[in-house]
C-alpha cells in the first residue's frame, strides 16, 4: 500500500523528455514575451514569440524522436552499449519500455508514437496561430497552448486514475483559457465560459465516478482495477445488481462523453468551436479529442473491460450497449445538425461530434472480442487521419476570419477561381472527411468499420453490423454539408465586400500538410496501420511490468491477411462460453501479442499479460499475489 519512494528510478525522467522540454519552453516563451512586451508591437511580437515557440516544438520533436532512436539503439545492441550512452542509461533503455514512475505512466510504443503526433500537430497549430493578431498576450497564449500539449501527452501516457485526472485537467484548463483569448469578439469569451462550465461539471462528474470506482476496487491502477473487477463474480458486475458500480460507470461515461463531445453531452462543442480562435478550435477538435479518446480506450478497454458485456449480451448489463447507443445517436445527430449550419466552424463542430460517433463504433467493437487491439488500432488510425484533416480545415477558418472577419461557409465563395491550388487542397480535405476514396478518411473509416464487423462475436455481430450500416448511411448524409463547402468554392462567384487575401505560409502549410496526409495514407495506409496497431497493442497491454518497446513498432508485422483467423462465427456460435472465455481464441490472441512484441520478448517479464486473457489467468495471478501478501503479514 504505502509506496516506497526509493523505488523510483530517476532515470525515468529521461522518458519524459519531450513533455519536460515543452513545459520548460512554456516558461521560456512567457519570459521572452515579458522581455519584449514594451519594445515591440503586438504583431511583431506575434511573429517573434511564434517562432520562438516553434523552436521549442522542434526541440521537443527532436527529443521525442531521439528517445525512440535511443530505445531502438539500446535494444538492438544487446552485446555492447553505444559508446555515447552512459552504462547505466544504456542498461535502462535496453530494458523494455513499459511503466515508469511506479507504474503511473507508460513509456512505450504507444506513447512514443502519440508524442510525436502531438508535437507535430502542435507545430501546425502554433504555425496557424501566427496568421493574424487575435490577441495581444502572445506569451501567455503560446505558453498555454504548449502546456495543453503537455497535458495531452501525459494524458495519453497515464496508466492510472490519479494521473489521468490531473493531466485531463491540465489539458482542459489550458484550453478553457485559450478559448477566451480572442479579445475583440464577445463570442470568444462566451465560448470560453461555456466550455469552462460544461467542462468542469463533467470533470466533477467524472471525479465522483472515479471516487466510487476507487471505493469498489481500492486501487487507482488500471491493471489492478481490471484484475479486481474480473475476479468478482459475474452477478456483481456491470449495471445490474451493483448500484455503485453502475453509477461509477455511467458517471465516468458522462465525463468522457463531454470530453469527446458525444451526444447528449455535446452542447458545449458548437459554441466553444465557434467562439474560440480558429487555431484553438483546431487544437480542441484534434489534440484534445485524440488524447481523450486514448484515455477513454485505456479506461474502458483496459480497466473496465470486464464490465463491457459481462453476461455476454450486447445490450445486457455492461457499458457496451450504452456505448453502442451513444455512438448511434451521436453520429446521426451530429450529421443532421450539421446540415443546417451556416458557420464554417460550427459545421465542423457538428462534424466532429459525428466523427466521435464513428469512433465509438470502433471502441464498442474493440471490447467484444479477442481482436480488441486491432479494432483499437483502427480507431487510432482514424483519429490521426481525422486530426490532420481537421487542422487543415480550421486553417481555412483562420484564413476567413483574418481577411473577412466572419467565418461563414458563404465566405468561401469563388475561392476555386481565386486560388485554385489551395482550393483543391481544401477539396481533398473535405473529400477525406466525407470518406471518398482514395483519400485517407475513406480508408480510415472503412478500416474501422471492417474491424468492427470482423469481431467474431456471434451476439454482437448484428448490432455492430447495424452500427456500421448506420455509419455508412451517415457518411452519405455528411456528404451533403461538406459538399456545400465545395459548392461555395467552385460553383459560386466571389461576393461580399471583403476579399480573401493571399493565404500566407502560416495558413498554407497546415492545409497542405493535411492534404498530403490525406492523400498519402489513403493510397499507402499499410505503414500507418501497422504502427497504430502496434501502438494499440501496447496501449491495451498492462504496463505494471514491461511491455513491447519501440522495437516492436518497426518489426511488428501488421498481420498477414486473414488466413490465421478462426473460421469465424459459424464455428464459434452462440455457445455460452463465447469469445472472451474461449481459451483457444485467447491463446491465439496471446500468440499475436507475442509476435507483436517479438524483439522485446527476451526481456519481457512473465508478469506481462495480454489484456483479454481469460479471467482465469488473472484470478491465478491475483491469488498468487494474495498469498504473497499473507506471507508478508
Amino acid at each position: 500500500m504505502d509506496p516506497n519512494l526509493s523505488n523510483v528510478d530517476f532515470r525515468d525522467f529521461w522518458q519524459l523528455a519531450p513533455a519536460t522540454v515543452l513545459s520548460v519552453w512554456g516558461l521560456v516563451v512567457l519570459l521572452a514575451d515579458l522581455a519584449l512586451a514594451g519594445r515591440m508591437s503586438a504583431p511583431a511580437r506575434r511573429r517573434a514569440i511564434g517562432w520562438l515557440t516553434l523552436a521549442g516544438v522542434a526541440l521537443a520533436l527532436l527529443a521525442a524522436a531521439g528517445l525512440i532512436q535511443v530505445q531502438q539503439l539500446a535494444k538492438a545492441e544487446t552485446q555492447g552499449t553505444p559508446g555515447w550512452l552512459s552504462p547505466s542509461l544504456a542498461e535502462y533503455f535496453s530494458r523494455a519500455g513499459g511503466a515508469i514512475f511506479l507504474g503511473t505512466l507508460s513509456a512505450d510504443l504507444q506513447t512514443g508514437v502519440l508524442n510525436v503526433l502531438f508535437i507535430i500537430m502542435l507545430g501546425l497549430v502554433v504555425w496557424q496561430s501566427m496568421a493574424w493578431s487575435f490577441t495581444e498576450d502572445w506569451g501567455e497564449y503560446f505558453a498555454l497552448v504548449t502546456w495543453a500539449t503537455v497535458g495531452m501527452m501525459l494524458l495519453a501516457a497515464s496508466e492510472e486514475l490519479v494521473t489521468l485526472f490531473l493531466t485531463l485537467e491540465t489539458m482542459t484548463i489550458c484550453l478553457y483559457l485559450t478559448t477566451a483569448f480572442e479579445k475583440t469578439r464577445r463570442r470568444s469569451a462566451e465560448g470560453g465560459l461555456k466550455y469552462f462550465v460544461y467542462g468542469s461539471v463533467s470533470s466533477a462528474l467524472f471525479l465522483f465516478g472515479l471516487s466510487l470506482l476507487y471505493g469498489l476496487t481500492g486501487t487507482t491502477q488500471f491493471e489492478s482495477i481490471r484484475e479486481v473487477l474480473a475476479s468478482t463474480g459475474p452477478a456483481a458486475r456491470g449495471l445490474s445488481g451493483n448500484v455503485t458500480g453502475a453509477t461509477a460507470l455511467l458517471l465516468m461515461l458522462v465525463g468522457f462523453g463531454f470530453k469527446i463531445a458525444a451526444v447528449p453531452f455535446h452542447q458545449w462543442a458548437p459554441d466553444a468551436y465557434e467562439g474560440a480562435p480558429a487555431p484553438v478550435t483546431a487544437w480542441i477538435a484534434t489534440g484534445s479529442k485524440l488524447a481523450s479518446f486514448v484515455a477513454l480506450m485505456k479506461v474502458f478497454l483496459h480497466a473496465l473491460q470486464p464490465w463491457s458485456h459481462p453476461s455476454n449480451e450486447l445490450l445486457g448489463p455492461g457499458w457496451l450497449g450504452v456505448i453502442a447507443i451513444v455512438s448511434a445517436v451521436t453520429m446521426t445527430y451530429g450529421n443532421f445538425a450539421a446540415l443546417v449550419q451556416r458557420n464554417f466552424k460550427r459545421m465542423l463542430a457538428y462534424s466532429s461530434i459525428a466523427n466521435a460517433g464513428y469512433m465509438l463504433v470502433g471502441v464498442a467493437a474493440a471490447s467484444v472480442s479477442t481482436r480488441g487491439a486491432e479494432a483499437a488500432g483502427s480507431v487510432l488510425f482514424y483519429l490521426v487521419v481525422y486530426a490532420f484533416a481537421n487542422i487543415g480545415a480550421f486553417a481555412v477558418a483562420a484564413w476567413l476570419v483574418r481577411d473577412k472577419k466572419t467565418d461563414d461557409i458563404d465566405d468561401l465563395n469563388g475561392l476555386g477561381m481565386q486560388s485554385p491550388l489551395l482550393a483543391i487542397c481544401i477539396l481533398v480535405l473535405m473529400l477525406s472527411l466525407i470518406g471518398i476514396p482514395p483519400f485517407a478518411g475513406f480508408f480510415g473509416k472503412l478500416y474501422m468499420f471492417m474491424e468492427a464487423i470482423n469481431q467474431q462475436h456471434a451476439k454482437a455481430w448484428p448490432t455492430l453490423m447495424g452500427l456500421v450500416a448506420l455509419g455508412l448511411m451517415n457518411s452519405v448524409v455528411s456528404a451533403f454539408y461538406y459538399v456545400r463547402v465545395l459548392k461555395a468554392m467552385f460553383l459560386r462567384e466571389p461576393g461580399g465586400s471583403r476579399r480573401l487575401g493571399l493565404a500566407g505560409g502560416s495558413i498554407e502549410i497546415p492545409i497542405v500538410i493535411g492534404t498530403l496526409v490525406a492523400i498519402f495514407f489513403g493510397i499507402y495506409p499499410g505503414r500507418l496501420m501497422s504502427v497504430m496497431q502496434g501502438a494499440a497493442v501496447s496501449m491495451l497491454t498492462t504496463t505494471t511490468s514491461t511491455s513491447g518497446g519501440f522495437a516492436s513498432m518497426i518489426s511488428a508485422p501488421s498481420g498477414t491477411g486473414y488466413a490465421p483467423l478462426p473460421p469465424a462465427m459459424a464455428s464459434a456460435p452462440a455457445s455460452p462460453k463465447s469469445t472472451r472465455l474461449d481459451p483457444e481464441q485467447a491463446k491465439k490472441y496471446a500468440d499475436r501479442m507475442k509476435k507483436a512484441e517479438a524483439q522485446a520478448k527476451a526481456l519481457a517479464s512473465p508478469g506481462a499479460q495480454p489484456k483479454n486473457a481469460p479471467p482465469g489467468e488473472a484470478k491465478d495471478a491475483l491469488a498468487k499475489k494474495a498469498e504473497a501478501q499473507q506471507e508478508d503479514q
Partner: protein
Amino acid sequence: MSDNLLLTSLWLLPLIGMVGVLAVPRRSEAAIKYLALAATIITFVVTLIALGLYVGDGPSSAPLQDRVIHNVLQKDGSGALTIADESAGEGDLVVRRSWIPYFNIQYYLGLDGISLSLVVLTGLISVLACLASWNITKQVKGYYALFLLLVASMMGVFVSLDLFLFYVFFEVMLLPMYFLIGIWGGPDREYAAIKFLLYTLFGSVFILVAVLILFFWSGDTTGAQSLYNATGQVQPFTGHSFDIVELTGVATKTGYYGLGIQSWVFVLFLIGFLIKLPSFPFHTWLPDAHVEAPTPISMILAGILLKIGGYGLIRLAWPLAPLGAHYWAYFVAALGVFSILYGALVAMAQTDFKKLVAYSSVSHMGYVTLGLAAMNLLTSPQYYAYGVNGAMFMMLAHGITSAGMFFLVGVIYDRAHTRDLNKLGGLNNIMPLYGAISYVIFFGSMGLPGLCGFVAEFFVVVAAFNYSKLLAVLAATAVVLTAGYILWTLQRVFLGRSETWKGLPDMDLREIVVAVPLVVLTIAMGVFPNTLVLSWVSPSVGEMVNSVVTAARELNVSAIRTVEKTAPRIPDSISAPSTRPAVASRASGSL
C-alpha cells in the same frame, strides 16, 4: 508491352493527361485542348491494342478464370503476399499486385470480352466527347482536367477485378461528374449536380455493404474449396477476399454463400447498380443531370456512365449472387419491363428534346435489366444466353446511339438555343446533313432492323419470351411505343417547314468527325453484329451464363425440385463446363 503496363496505362494515361493539362498555363487554351485530345486518342489506341491482343490467338483469349490462375501472388518468408508471379508470361491481359495485404486488397486488373468491349467503348466515346467539348469556353483548363479524371476513373472501373479497387474507382468517378455538371451545366446545375452526387453516393453505400458481406461472410458450408485463389493453390475458402474471379467461382461452384446471404447480396448490389443504370424507381436523377449537363458530358453520362450500372450487374450482381439473382429474377424482370414501358411513355410526354432522350435511356436500360433477369435456367437455359448477350449488346448499342443522340441535341441547341420540340421544326430542309445523320442514329436507337438497336432488343425479347410470355409481350409492345416517340420527335424536329430557323448553318467539319464514327458503328453493328462484337464478347458472356446456370442447377436444390415436377427434362448442353461454352457459341452462331 507487358500486361502491367498495358492495363495500368488504360487508366493512368488519362490521369497523366490531366496532370499535363494542369501544368499548361491557363491562357493557352488551344494547347490544353489538343493535349486533352491527344491523351484520349492515345488511350483509345491502347484500348485497341488490348482488343487486338484479346481477339488474337495469344494467351489472352483464354477464359478469364484460366488466365488469372497464372497470375498469382506468392508468399514471401514472413507470410506476406507480396511478390507477383506472372507465370504465364506476358500478354494475357491480367495483372495482379499486392496493395494492402492486411485486408487482402490487391491491385488486380484484367480484361475479358465483357469489360474489354466497354473499355473500347469508353475510349471511343471519350475521344468523341473531347472533340465535342471544343466550344466550351468557361474555365477550359479545369474542364479538361476533370474530363480526363472522369475518363481515368471509368477505365479503372472496367478493368478492376478487385472489389475494393472497383469501389475506389467507382467513387472517384462521382467527383469530376459533380463538378462537370455543377460548373459547366445549365441554369439549374447546382440542384442537378447535388442530386446526382447524393443518389450515387447513396447507391454506393449499398454496394459497399454487399462487398463487406461477401468479404466477411463466414460460410454456410464447411470445406468449400477456393478454385482460383490468389496464391494459386487450392485451399479451403474462408471468405476475406475481394477477388472478383475467386468470389465468382466460390459463389457459383460451392455452397459457401447460401441462398439466404446471396439474396441479401444480390438485392444490395441491385439497388446500388439500378441507381446507376438507372432503372425505375431510382431514375429521377437522370433527367435532371442530363438536362443540365453540357453536351459532351451528357454523351459520357449516357454513353458510358450508365453502362457502369449495367456492367456492375453483369460482372458483380449476377455472378457473385446467382442464387439470389434466380430468387429475385421475376421481380427484377418485371422491374425491367416496367422501366421500358415507363421510360417510353414518359419520353412521349416530353417537350424538352434532351429530357426525351434521357427518358429513352431509362427505357433502353430496362432491356438490360430484363435481359439479365430472364432467367429460365432450368428448362431452356440456352435462351438465357440470348438474354445476357442481348443485354450486353444493348449496352454497347445504346452507348453508341445515346451518345450520338445527345450530341445531335447539343448541335441543334448550339444553333437554335432551344431544345423545345414544339419550337423546332423543318430542320430537314435547312440542315440536310444533320437530318440524315439524325435519322440513322435515332432509327438505330429505335431498333430498326439492320441497325444496332434491333439486335439487342430482339435477343432480349426472345429470352424474355422463353421466360414469361406476359413480360415478353409487354416488352414487345414497348417497341411500338419507342417507335412512336422517336418518329414523332423526328417529325416535330425535321419535317414541315419553318421560317424561324432559316439560315442555320449545317454541321461543320468537327461535328461531322464526331458524328461519323457513331453513324458507321450504328449501321455496322446492326449488319455485322457477330463479326464486330459478339464473336469476342459472347464467349465471356457465355462463361458468366454458364457459371450462373451451374450455380442454379447444382446449388439451388429446391428450385430444381419444383422444375422436375413440371418439366423433368434438362438439356445437357449446359452441363459440360467446356472451355468455350456451347451456349454462347450457339447464341452467336445462330445469327
